[in-house]
C-alpha cells in the first residue's frame, strides 16, 4: 500500500532517467542521507563513529572499487589491498613532499597513482582470463606490499614501513575529531558512490557489462576491449586508492604495508560477494555485514559462550562460525544481500495481496 508507483507519471526524459525512478525510493534515500549527515554525528558515540561507521564507509568505497572491476567488468581481482596501499602511501608522500598541498588534492593524486598502478597490472587482462587473471593480480598484491616494505623512501625512512597520517586540514578547518573525520569520509564516499551509480548507466558502464557477459561478443559488436578493460582497472583502482587514503587518514591514522595484505583483499572480495556483485548498494551492505559480523560474533562468544570455554577455543569457534556463515550465505543467497533487498521490495509492492 505504501510502496507503489501508481500515479507517478514520467512527463519528461529527465524524469524517466532518474537514478531512483520511484518516489518512495527517493524519499528513503533522502532520509538516509540526512540521517547519515545530520543525525549520526550527534547521536552516535565516539566509539561507534571511529570504529564502526567510518570503517564501514571506507570499506564500502573499496568494495565499490572492486565491484566496478569484478561486478561490472567481470575481471576477477585479488589485489585490492595492494591498490589501497598504493593510494595510502601515495597520498602520504604527496602531502609530505609537496609543501602546502591541500589534503583533498593529495587524496586525489593518491587515487590517480593507484589508478596508474592498476592500469599497469591490468595489462595482462588483455590476454589472460578468469582464475588465471586472479592469480596475476596476486603478483600485484605481493609485489606492492614487498616494495613498500623494502624501499624505505615510501615511508619516509620510518621503521618497517609504518606511516603516520598527517593532520587533515581543509581550508583551515581541522578534521581531528571522530565526528569530523566521519563526516569527511561520508562526504567523499557519497560523492564517489553517486558517481559510480551514474557511471554504471553510461556508455562506459554498459560496455563493461557487455565485456563481463562475454568479451568476444562485446568485441564483435564494436566495443574496444583494451580501452574498456583498462578503463575498468583504472577507475576501480582509483576508487580503491581513495579508499586506501581514507583508510590511513580518517580511519586508522597509522598504517603499515602488511596491513594491506592478502587478507584485506579477500575481505573486500567477500564484501562484494555477500553484498551482491554489480551493485552499488551491495558494496555498502556487504561492507557493513562483513565488518559487523566478527564484532557481533566476538561479543556473542565472549559474553555467552566465553564464560564456559577458554578464550583460545572461543576465538577458534569464532573462526568456525565465520566460515560456516560464509558458506551458508553463499548457498542460501548466492546473489547477495542486494537480491534479498530486491525481493523485499517486490513483496512490499504487492502487499497486502499475494500477486
Amino acid at each position, binding site marked *: 500500500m505504501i510502496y507503489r508507483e501508481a500515479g507517478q507519471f514520467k512527463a519528461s526524459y529527465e524524469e524517466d532517467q532518474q537514478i531512483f525512478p520511484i518516489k518512495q525510493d527517493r524519499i528513503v534515500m533522502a532520509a538516509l542521507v540526512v540521517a547519515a549527515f545530520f543525525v549520526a554525528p550527534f547521536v552516535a558515540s565516539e566509539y561507534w563513529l571511529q570504529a564502526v561507521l567510518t570503517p564501514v564507509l571506507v570499506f564500502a568505497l573499496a568494495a565499490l572499487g572492486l565491484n566496478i572491476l*569484478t561486478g561490472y567488468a567481470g575481471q*576477477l581481482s585479488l589485489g585490492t589491498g595492494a591498490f589501497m596501499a598504493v593510494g595510502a602511501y601515495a597520498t602520504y608522500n604527496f602531502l609530505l613532499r609537496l609543501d602546502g598541498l591541500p589534503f583533498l588534492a593529495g587524496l586525489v593524486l593518491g587515487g590517480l597513482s593507484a589508478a596508474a598502478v592498476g592500469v599497469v597490472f591490468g595489462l*595482462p587482462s588483455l*590476454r*589472460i*582470463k*578468469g*582464475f*588465471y587473471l586472479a*592469480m*596475476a593480480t*596476486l*603478483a600485484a598484491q*605481493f*609485489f606492492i*606490499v*614487498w616494495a613498500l*616494505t*623494502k*624501499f624505505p623512501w615510501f615511508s619516509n625512512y620510518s621503521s618497517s614501513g609504518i606511516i603516520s597520517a598527517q593532520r587533515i586540514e581543509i581550508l583551515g578547518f581541522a578534521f581531528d575529531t571522530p565526528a569530523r573525520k566521519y563526516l569527511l569520509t561520508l562526504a567523499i564516499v557519497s560523492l564517489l558512490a553517486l558517481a559510480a551509480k551514474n557511471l554504471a548507466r553510461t556508455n562506459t558502464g554498459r560496455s563493461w557489462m557487455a565485456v563481463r557477459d*562475454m*568479451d*568476444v*561478443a562485446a568485441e*564483435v559488436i564494436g566495443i574496444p576491449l583494451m580501452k574498456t578493460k583498462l578503463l575498468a582497472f583504472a577507475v576501480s583502482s582509483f576508487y580503491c586508492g581513495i579508499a586506501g587514503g581514507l583508510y590511513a587518514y580518517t580511519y586508522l591514522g597509522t598504517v603499515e604495508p602488511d596491513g594491506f595484505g*592478502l587478507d584485506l583483499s*579477500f575481505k573486500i*572480495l*567477500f564484501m562484494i*560477494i555477500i553484498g551482491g556483485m554489480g551493485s552499488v548498494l551491495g558494496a555498502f551492505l556487504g561492507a557493513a555485514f562483513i565488518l559487523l559480523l566478527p564484532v557481533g560474533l566476538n561479543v556473542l562468544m565472549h559474553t555467552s559462550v566465553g564464560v564456559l570455554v577458554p578464550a*583460545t*577455543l572461543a576465538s*577458534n*569457534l*569464532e*573462526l*568456525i562460525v*565465520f*566460515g*560456516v*556463515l*560464509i*558458506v551458508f550465505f*553463499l*548457498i542460501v543467497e*548466492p546473489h547477495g544481500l542486494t537480491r534479498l533487498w530486491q525481493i523485499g521490495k517486490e513483496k512490499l509492492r504487492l502487499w497486502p495481496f499475494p500477486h
Partner: protein
Amino acid sequence: MQFFLEVFIGGLLAGMLYALVALGFVLIFKASGVLNFAQGAMVFFAALTFVGFSDRLARWFGASPDASPVFWAALALTAAAMVLLAWVVERFMLRKLVNQPAITLFMATIGLSYLIEGVAQGTWGAAVHGLDLGIADEPVMWLLERYNLMISKFDLSAAVVAGVLVAVLALFFQYTKVGRALRAVADDHQAALSVGIPLQRIWVIVWAVAGFVAIVAGLVWGARNGVQFALTYTALKALPVLILGGLTSVPGAIVGGLIIGASEKLAEVYLGPYVGGGIDSWFPYVLALVFLLIRPEGLFGEKHIDRV
C-alpha cells in the same frame, strides 16, 4: 658453477614440494571445477591431525611417538579424517552449490578454509609441534664425496615421495575404473551423469584423494618447518605453480613446481641481494605472469576456445 648447481638442484627439490601442494588443487579443479583455496588449510589440518593422533596413540599404548606401528596407525586415522572431511564438504557444501559460478565456489572454499583452520586448532590446540619422519636433514654423503655437492637427504627423499605419488596418481587415473570415471567427470559433468557415473560419489573420492595428497604434503612440510599455522600458506606457494603449469594438468603441476622452485632459489641468490632480498614472496607470481602472457592457459592447461 659448484654453487650454482647446488642452488639449482636445491630449488628443483623444493619445487617438488610445491608441486605436491599444487597437485591437490589440480585434482579438485579437474573433477569439480572448483579452485579449492582450502587446500592449504587441508595440509595444515592433515599435519595437525597426524601429530595429534600419534601423540595420543603413543601415550595410550606407552610407545614412543616415532615407533612405526604408531606411525601407521596415526596415518590411517588421519586418512579416515580426510575422507570424513571430503564427505562433509560434498554433502553440505558442493551439493548445494552445483551450477553456481566459479567465483562463488571459490569464495565458498575460502569460507571452508576458515572453518577447517578453526576446527583443526580447536581440536588439537594451536601449539607448534615438531614432526620427525626419521630422515635427517643432512647432505647426501655419496654426492658430497664424489661431486662435492651439498644436497639435503631430506629434500631428496621428499622429492622421491612426491614423484612416486604423482606416478601412483597417474596410474590410478589411467587404469582404474574410478580413475576413468574421474576423467569422464572432469571432461563433462552432464555427459558423465547421463552415462550413469555417480557424480556426488566421484566428488567425495576426488576430495578424499586431494586430502591424501594433503597428508603427504603436510607430513613433508611439517617435518621441514614444524607443524604450525604457517602450513596454510603453502597454498600461496602452490598457486603460481598451479597457474604456470595449467589449472587442469597433473604433469603441469610437476613441471611448474620444478620451474618455480629452481628459478625462485636462483633469483633469491643471484638477484635478491641487489634489491634487498625477500623477493620469494612475489617472484614466483611475476614469473608465472610472464609465462601466462605467452601461454594464457599455462604450460599444459586446456586450450580455451571462445565462441560467440
